């Protein structure tokens, strides 16, 4: 090999390395799992397994085995079934009264909240040897991103029924206050909505809707700006 060829090879390797930096850096973290479908076909069709083991595998793979489909798209909704597609394979998801429906952040949901084109993940048990039917234990709707929790922000505008906060990681969020919402200051004394002003730092406990940028069903609001604290720049004589 002459010097020119070696240089050309090194330059090529250099460009491949540059154009796929993540691949190069995280090569060892790549998932090496064989897809479930292929794995099963290998097990069932592999003649080396022998007849006895083949039957054993078929029995093992039949009904009752744990089933999990990660992030498939809903293409049809029945009274108690969902049809979802993942990796060009169609699955029928059978639900019943024991099936738990959850949102992305594990809030309680229902079959009615699922729409066509929603992304769902399913955990349950296979109902047929072909692994196309699942009796669902949990259906999690990744497309409904509502989460109950606490959310911090600074008030940027106030209305009669609520206010808007600017939060560090979620941008503007509209907060709708209920009659039942408890509003307290920093030391837990009860205050009213009219005490909350633009610039106040608040913590809102309720359900955050990522799609509509709202916080609703609010249980508690805590205003950390009341009572007023001395500024670090102010001095006392």
């Amino acid at each position, binding site marked *: 090999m002459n010097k020119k060829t070696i240089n050309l090879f090194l*330059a090529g390797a*250099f*460009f491949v390395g*540059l*154009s796929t*930096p*993540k691949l190069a850096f995280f090569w060892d973290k790549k998932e090496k799992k064989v897809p479930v479908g292929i794995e099963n076909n290998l097990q069932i069709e592999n003649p080396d397994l022998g007849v006895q083991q083949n039957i054993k595998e078929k029995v093992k793979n039949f009904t009752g085995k*744990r089933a*999990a489909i990660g992030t498939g798209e809903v293409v049809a909704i029945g009274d108690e079934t969902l049809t979802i597609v993942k990796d060009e394979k169609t699955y029928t998801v059978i639900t019943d009264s024991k099936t*738990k429906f*959850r949102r*992305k*952040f*594990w809030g309680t949901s229902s079959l009615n909240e699922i729409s066509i084109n929603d992304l769902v*993940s399913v*955990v349950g048990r296979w109902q047929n040897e072909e692994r196309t039917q699942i009796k669902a*234990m*949990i259906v*999690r709707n990744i497309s409904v991103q509502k*989460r*109950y*929790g*606490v959310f*911090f*922000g*600074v008030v*940027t505008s106030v209305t009669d029924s609520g206010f808007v906060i*600017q*939060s*560090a*990681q979620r*941008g503007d969020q509209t907060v709708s206050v209920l009659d039942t919402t408890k509003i307290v200051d*920093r030391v837990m004394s009860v205050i009213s909505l009219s005490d909350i002003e633009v610039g106040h*730092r608040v*913590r809102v406990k309720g359900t955050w809707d990522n799609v509509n940028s709202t916080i609703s069903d609010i249980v508690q609001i*805590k205003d*950390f*700006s009341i009572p007023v*604290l*001395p*500024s*670090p720049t102010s001095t006392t004589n």
Partner: protein
Amino acid sequence: MTVKPKYFLLVISGLIFVFLALLVIFSDLPDKNLFQKFEKISGQKVTQNEEEIKVVDKNLPETEEIFLDIVSPKDMDTVSSSLLTIKGTTVASAEIFINDKETKADKSGNFSVNITLEEGENILTIIMNDSLGNYIEKQLTVTLESF
């Protein structure tokens, strides 16, 4: 003026290298604009790394620096029992929120919360705030495989 092909290739390689390096650096950065906008409006300082987001008001009197350490579980753990105890340490008497549960750290800053996991991947959002509203938010993923 004629440029030798090998020098021309060297310059092009250098430019491509710089372009790709910038692409890699900036593709993984968090949304700085959102933080800058928030800092401008609120007068608060936002610090974010892979593990947590920390928001501290720069206009308040100096207080103890806030922190939040989760002792267990670890991010990306897989467990077989649906009952999970989350243990950690933070500043004394801080308010702690873990998904829909809440508690208060003791005088040493220790806290412990039991939660029930669902089958599959569970996202745990763990938040602490001090008495002035400074806070830290962390997210852990724990997978339950019970059958």
